[in-house]
Every structure is written in C-alpha cells, then in structure tokens.
C-alpha cells in the first residue's frame, strides 16, 4: 500500500476520506454533510499546497516530472500498465486550480442545494478525485480511467440537481464526451501495443511513430479533447450542460472539466505527436479563431445569462487553443495561464449568476436592469469579474489573452507554425475577439445592472451579497488581481516545463520550412 502514501496519491485521494465520513452521516444532517465536504476539500487544498510548496519535494525550477509515484499495476505479457502519478509545470497550476475551486464551489451550494445534500457532496468529492487524477496521471491507461470517471459524477450533478431540462443536458453531456473519449481509447491502446508501455514519458522518449500514423492518433486524441474543450463546432453540448447544471456544477464544469480537454492537448497531443501537431496546428488555429469570434458573437445574442457565459467559454477556450498551437513559449504559457484565468473568471461569473438566481429564480436578462443601485457590492464584483473575463489590463484575463495573442502573432512569422496558413491573420482576427468580448460582457453588465430598474428589480426585495457569498468570491478576486498585476510566480512555475515541451518543435519547424 506504499503507493497510497505518495504525496500525489494523498492529494488525489484525500477527498475519498470525506466520502467515507459522508457515508456514515444521515441525509438529514445537512449542516454536518456540508461541513464535512467543505473541510475535506479545504484539507485537500492545503495538502496540495503542502505537496508543491512546503514539502520540499517539488522544485519549481525543474522542468521535468516530479513527485513521481510509479508502481506496477497491471503487468502481464505485453501489458505494462502503471500506477504512475507525477506533476510538472504543465499540470501544477491545474491541480491547484482544482483543489482551489472545489471548496469554493462547495461553499456556493450552502443554501443553493437543499435536496439530497448527501448525494450531492458525495458526487462532488468523487468528481474532485477524478479531476485531480486526470491532471496527475502519467500513464495513459490510468489517465483514461480518471478521464472517464469524471463523467459519472458530473452526469449525476447535472441530471439530479440541474434545471428543468436537466435530463436532456446530462445525457447529451455524457454521450458527447464519451463519443470523443472512446476514440481516444483506441489510440491509447494502439500506443500501448506498439510502444509496449502506457507511460507517457516513456512513449515520448521512444518517439518513433511515423508521421502519417501520428496524424491518425492525433485526430483520435483530439476527438476526445476537442469535444471536452469544447472547440468549435463541437460545442453544442456546452450551453445545455452549463445552463442546466447547478451553480457549483457550472463552476467546476467551466473551471476544471473544460481544462481537462486543453490539458489533454498539452500533455498528450503535443509531446506524443509533435510532427502531427505541427501539421494540425493551422487547422486547430483556425478552428480556435472561428470559435473565438463565433462564441463571442453568439453569446452577445443570448438572453439567458448563463447561456451567455457558457458561450463565452467557447470564445475563451478558443484563445487557449490558439495559444497552445502557436507552439512558442508565449503562446503556450499564455494558454496555460488562460486556463487558470478562465477557471477563475468564468467560475466567478457562474457563482455570481447563481447567487442572483437563488433570489430571483430567473436568468432572463430583459427582466433585470438597474440592479447596481440596489445591490452595489454584487454589481461591483460582477463588473470586476466581467472585466477580468474580457481581458482588461491589470486583471488576470489580459495577461493570458495578451500573451496568447502575442504568441499566435509570432507563430505567423516566417519560421512560425502558422506561417503560410494564414500567418498574422489568425492573431489579427483573434484580436477582434477582444472587441467582441467587450461587447457581450458590457451588454450583459448593462442589461443587468445599468439602465432603469427592470421588472425583477422593481418587484423583488433583492438583497445584496451576504458575508458567505462574499467570502466565496473573495479568493477568486484575490487571484484575479494577483495574476493580473504580478503573474510572475505563475509563469515561473510553468516555464521550465514549457521549455522542455517546446524543445522538439524547433527542429521540426526548421525542417518544415
């Protein structure tokens, strides 16, 4: 049982202790259930902080995998499946984002979830295990198990505690995601069979996959990840899932689950199939740009706030994909940071929407209006988060979007990956997304908070945020400002790993041009 004592194992599985405690509590003990879940997730967060920063076991200056836990798991002729956990600069921020957002999401359910609290918390903690697992697994097989596992709790979270159309949304979410991942499974098996191992670092080190095969495998992996991201035009499940999911579910869905897709590209597609990545980069780049503009335009039209935010995710994650496939330091670093940013900003937006929804039970924009006068704190926080989401300099969103666009623009230079496939146009059009983002965010802000008082504002006795709600948002705000003003610690964490990641691409790009 040594493998359970590894730091990353403890991080990954510590929510299970909470699950155990929950099992012994009665469904009626709602407060105890909530506190158990909250404390568990907080402890998990603290453990993750300890593991990376205070244990002395993780050296941020090292670009390689660290905190390695590597044990044989399933080892029969030709099968070499390992229990292989590790973290590096590509995943550390996402692991921390997961452990950070989970307690916040749980806190947001304090009064929002009154039914079946026990089941809710159970699923939530299980979901956390799956999400952390996805980010720490270095064995394809193990990764796949965690990957698929996250589907189940989320499916229940949407399906049981969701809105009126929840069944449809839950099943759609499930089937879309599964459709993608099953193709990835085949590619994983192919890799395992031909490489004799499922361990990602070993497969990367072997790196002898012929270019045309690479492309097929790339597509198979991309199918899973692109649906999860979701990249345009595979986003059709997202508005449903987001709109129907309970607030905490939306927060986690936007904050972490979508990142699993982008992380997958980063962790698997790029290093495993470098030649194919270079080949596919323009296609992905263009899809990302379309997604950026399309998502922004479509969200501008929405009357449902949650849907608006959901479509904005399509736009934001387009930025992430664009930066990642710019395949230069700025682009990739920006992409990783933007994953975190999107988790914070969109997570916060969903929290805010959830908080007002709890009072008014409507998300219909036209019935709001003039809210700022009645709920100044709520309005101000929404404004800050909205500004962060549209990339106002000084807040986190800008740092991510700017570095991404800078990277994408650089990829249009003559030795870049987009040269000859649109060049500067990609970054140029993507930068138009910055304008469109301002349009839909301001539209949302205006329709809710500015203007004359709307029906809801007039006829409801609306209360401003209470202390618990402010406390829920505060940590997010701290990071929104921190990353915006002083992102250096965050970049420092990822840069060595990014340099390692990008090493092979120099040569490939040289050869290509």
């Amino acid at each position, binding site marked *: 049982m040594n493998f359970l004592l590894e730091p990353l194992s403890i991080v990954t599985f510590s929510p299970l202790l909470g699950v155990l405690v929950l099992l012994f509590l009665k469904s009626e003990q709602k407060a105890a259930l909530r506190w158990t879940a909250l404390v568990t997730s907080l402890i998990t967060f603290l453990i993750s902080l300890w593991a990376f920063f205070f244990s002395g076991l993780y050296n941020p200056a090292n670009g390689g995998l660290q905190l390695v836990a590597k044990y044989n798991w399933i080892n029969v002729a030709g099968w070499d499946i390992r229990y292989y956990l590790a973290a590096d600069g590509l995943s550390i921020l996402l692991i921390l984002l997961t452990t950070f957002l989970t307690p916040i999401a749980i806190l947001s359910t304090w009064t929002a979830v009154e039914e079946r609290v026990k089941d809710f918390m159970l699923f939530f903690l299980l979901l956390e295990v799956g999400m952390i697992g996805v980010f720490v697994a270095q064995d394809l097989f193990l990764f*796949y198990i*965690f990957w698929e596992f996250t589907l*189940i709790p989320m*499916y229940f979270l949407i399906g*049981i505690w969701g809105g009126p159309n*929840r069944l449809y949304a839950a099943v759609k979410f499930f089937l879309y995601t599964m459709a993608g991942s099953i193709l990835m*499974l085949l590619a994983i098996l192919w890799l395992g069979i031909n490489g004799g191992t499922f361990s990602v670092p070993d497969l990367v080190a072997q790196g002898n996959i012929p270019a045309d095969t690479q492309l097929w495998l790339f597509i198979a992996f991309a199918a899973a990840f692109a649906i999860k991201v979701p990249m345009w035009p595979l986003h059709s499940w997202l508005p449903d899932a987001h709109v129907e999911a309970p607030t905490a579910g939306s927060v986690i869905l936007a904050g972490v689950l979508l990142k699993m897709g982008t992380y997958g590209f980063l962790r698997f597609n790029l290093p495993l199939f470098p030649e194919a990545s270079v080949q596919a980069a323009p296609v992905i780049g263009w899809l990302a740009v379309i997604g950026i503009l399309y998502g922004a335009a479509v969200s501008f039209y929405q009357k449902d706030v949650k849907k608006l935010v959901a479509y904005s995710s399509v736009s934001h994650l387009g930025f992430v994909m664009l930066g990642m496939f710019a395949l230069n330091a700025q682009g990739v670093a920006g992409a990783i940071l933007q994953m975190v940013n999107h988790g914070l900003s969109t997570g916060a937006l969903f929290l805010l929407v959830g908080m007002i929804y709890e009072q008014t039970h409507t998300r219909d924009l036209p019935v709001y209006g003039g809210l700022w006068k009645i709920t100044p704190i709520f309005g101000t926080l929404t404004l800050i988060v909205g500004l962060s989401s549209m990339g106002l300099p000084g807040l986190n969103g800008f740092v991510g979007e700017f570095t991404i666009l800078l990277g994408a623009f650089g990829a249009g230079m003559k030795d870049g990956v987009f040269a000859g496939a649109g060049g500067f146009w990609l970054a140029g059009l993507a930068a138009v997304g910055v304008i469109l983002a301002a349009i839909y965010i301001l539209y949302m802000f205006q329709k809710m908070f500015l203007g004359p008082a709307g029906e809801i504002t007039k006829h409801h006795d609306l209360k401003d945020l209470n202390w618990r709600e402010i406390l829920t948002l505060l940590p997010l705000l701290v990071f929104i400002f921190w990353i915006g003003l002083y992102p250096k610690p965050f970049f420092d964490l990822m840069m060595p790993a990014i340099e390692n990641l990008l090493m092979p691409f120099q040569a490939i790009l040289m050869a290509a041009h």
Partner: protein
Amino acid sequence: MTQTDFSTILPVTILTAWASLLLLADLFLPREQKGWTALLAALGLALTMGITLAQSGQEFAPGFGGMIVRDGFSTFLNVLFLLIGLLGIAVSHGYNHRMGIERGEYYPLMLFSVVGMMLMAQATDLIVVFLALELLSFPLYVMAAFAYPKPQSEEAGLKYFLLGAFSSGFVVYGIALAFGATGSTDLAYILAAVSTGAASLPLLTAGAGLILVGFGFKVAAVPFHMWTPDVYQGAPTSVTAFMAAGAKAAGFAALLRVFGMAFPALAADLAPLMAILAALTMILGNLVAVAQTDMKRMLAYSSIAQAGYILMAFAPFDNEAARTMAVAGGLFYLVAYTLASFGSWGVVIALERAEDKGLQITDYNGLGRKYPLLGAAMAVFMLSLIGLPPTLGLIGKIYLFRAALEGGLVWLAIVGALTSIVSAFYYLRVVVNMFMREGQPQVEREWWLEFAIGAVAIGTIIVSLWPFPLFDWAQQAVMVLF
C-alpha cells in the same frame, strides 16, 4: 477407469450425484420448506467449487482416452459456472417463492445444467461437447417454461426448445461432417489429421461452420440471436438471469475449446467470419436495445450486444501473436459480463412483481432516491456494461479492443467503440430514470438477493481496481488451448 479418469470428472460426478439425490430429497420436503432445497443445492455447488479449486494446481490431465480433460481452462470456467449457479440460487430463492413457482425440481435442474456447462468446458471430444450442450440445454428449456401455465413462460420454453433443438441439429450434422473429414471426433486427433494432411478440408470447414452455428445460437450471436429477447422476456426472470450468464459462458467455453484445439488450421477462414459476426452482433444488439421499453427485453438485447464484444476475442484468431491475449481478454470480459449481467437481472428481480408489473424501464423511476444502495448497484452494473470506470466492464473492454487492435482489426475496434457509445444511450436511460426522475418503485426486500447484488457490485468495482490477478488467471487458463 483409472484414477486420473476419475479425478478428471470428480467435480462433475459429485454435482450430478448431488443433484440426483436432491431430486429425491425434495420429495420428502414439505411444500412450505422448499427453502431447504435451495440451501442444499447451494451447498452442493459450494462443495464442488471447493473440490474444483483444490484440484486446480494440477496440470493438463486428460481422462477417458482424451475425451475429457481437466486443465487450467476448465478450472477457470468451472469456477465461473459454479459461481453462476450460486448466484442463480441466490436470486431465484425469493423470486420463485414470490411468483408461486417454487417447485422442488427447479434447483436440481439448475444443478444439472451447471453440470452440462462444466462438461462443456472440460470436453475434448465432439461427442462430449454435444452431450454437454444438450445436458445444459434441456434443463434450461424446462426452466424457461417453469412458470407454466403462464402463457409467456410456456411460449418462451417452447420457442427456446424448438429453436435450440433445431440448432443442435446443425451441430450434430456439423460433427458428423467433421468426423467424416478426419475420422475422429477427438479434438486432438482432428488437429493431428489436419496437420498431417489426412483430413478433407472442405468437409471439415463445413463441419466447423455448422458447429459454429450451434454455439452461435447458445451465445446469441447475430443472426442466431432471435430467440433471445423472446425467451429472456418470457422466462421467469430468475431463470433468465441464470441463462443469460450461464448458457452464454458455456457457449463461449465450447467455442474456445473446440476452435482453439481442433480448428487452428482453419483459423484463416474462421477468423474473418468471427470478426463479422462480432461486428453484426454488436451493431444489431446495441441498436435494437435502444428502442426497447421493457427492461427484460432491453437487457436481452444488451446481452446480445455483449456477446458481440466477447466475440471480438475470436477475431484475431489467425494471429498467433495476438490470440492468446485476445482469448484471455475474452475470458476476462466473460467474468465482467457475468457479474454485471447477473447484477442487473438481480435488480430486475427485485423490482418485478406479479402479473409482469415493474418491468418497464419507467418503473425504475426514482429507484435511486428510494433505495439508494440498490440504485447505486444498478448504476454500477450499467456503467460496467457501458465500460466506464471504476468498473470491471471498462477493463474488460479495453482488453478486447486491444485484442482487436493487436490483431490488426482496427475497424472492428472502431465498431466496438462506436457501439459502446450507442450502448451508453440505453444504459444511461436506466440511470436517468433511477436517479433523475421521480417515481415510487416497489421493491421486494430479500436478503439473499440483496446480498448477491451487493457482492456482485462490489466485486465489479474492486476487481477493476486490481484486475491483474484475474487477468493473469485468465491468461494461464488459455495457455493450454494453443
């Protein structure tokens, strides 16, 4: 009869004797104490299981002039069959009582059927294979009609019987042709005849094809599947549970044994056929299951589809490098399927009430709410049948896909993958109904049933986290075949 001969058939003999005695003993049991029969039958199975396991250390041990054998393969499967028998008793006991079909001969019949299954795994002569096939089938015919005079049950019994007998006609004729081609029904001899060139290959091929039909019927492969939904629906659910796991497993056992031992020379011809059968079975089973509203029919089509997945293990039959692993994967999946299938039928039994109430998928609405553990168990089975973590079904499916890929059958793996998505569609509907819709399902609380369901659910999860021993065992088991 030598000592080896005897030790080879010791478990089978004991179980047969036990069943016969049980039949007698049952006569002396008063009507209201038929529970004892069940307990005694379980005892017999447990005893046999003990003996089988005790013998398991010994190597390939042929008996009766090579007609029957005891080896790792048979041990693996016999343990599985005995387990199926035990589970079958566990789910039958309360149900039969509740449905008013608690008759003494039920358990002896079940034991006889298990004997047939065990013989099937042990047979190395086509004569024994045929006998075992019939021995396992006859009790099932009777049990399918066990709820007489309920029309559906009678209809199921007769349909099963007529079609079963019809298909065994093909098997017999196939055996005759194989015999004609090689001059023997001994599997080892047939193999030898082929390799020395003494055999008439066209005749043998035709024979193999006809035998395949018989087994295909037992495992419910398309296009020999059509009896399945009707019989599964019409038969008492307890019988269906037993049949869905046992008969299918036995069919695969025979398929593996016969095709593994006797027909490797025909592999190049048979393998593509298997791949096509597997693909058709997966596609048709899964697609048709989607349209079902009756739980039993849905599960029946699901079991057809699952057979398709297991058939994937035969697809790389012509690839020497891949087939051992493939067949081991097949055995592994068989276990995964058995557990999930038994579990889900167990839940169906828990919900079924007299006059065919509680069998619609909509009758599962709110199950997870009212009976969270039962709902959770059912969810585990559904996830396992889809092939999602943390269940055995995922590991099994991965083994099978891997087998197909290793055998170079990428298209088959893709078909498997795509149909898995389709399967999610209807399995999830059950989960949706259980957890996300409101309803007032009524469940009969029965200790044995719940214990069986719980044990199977936990097993499905635990083994998936630590699948290595089971797979290792499966791999050891198939070593002897090739």
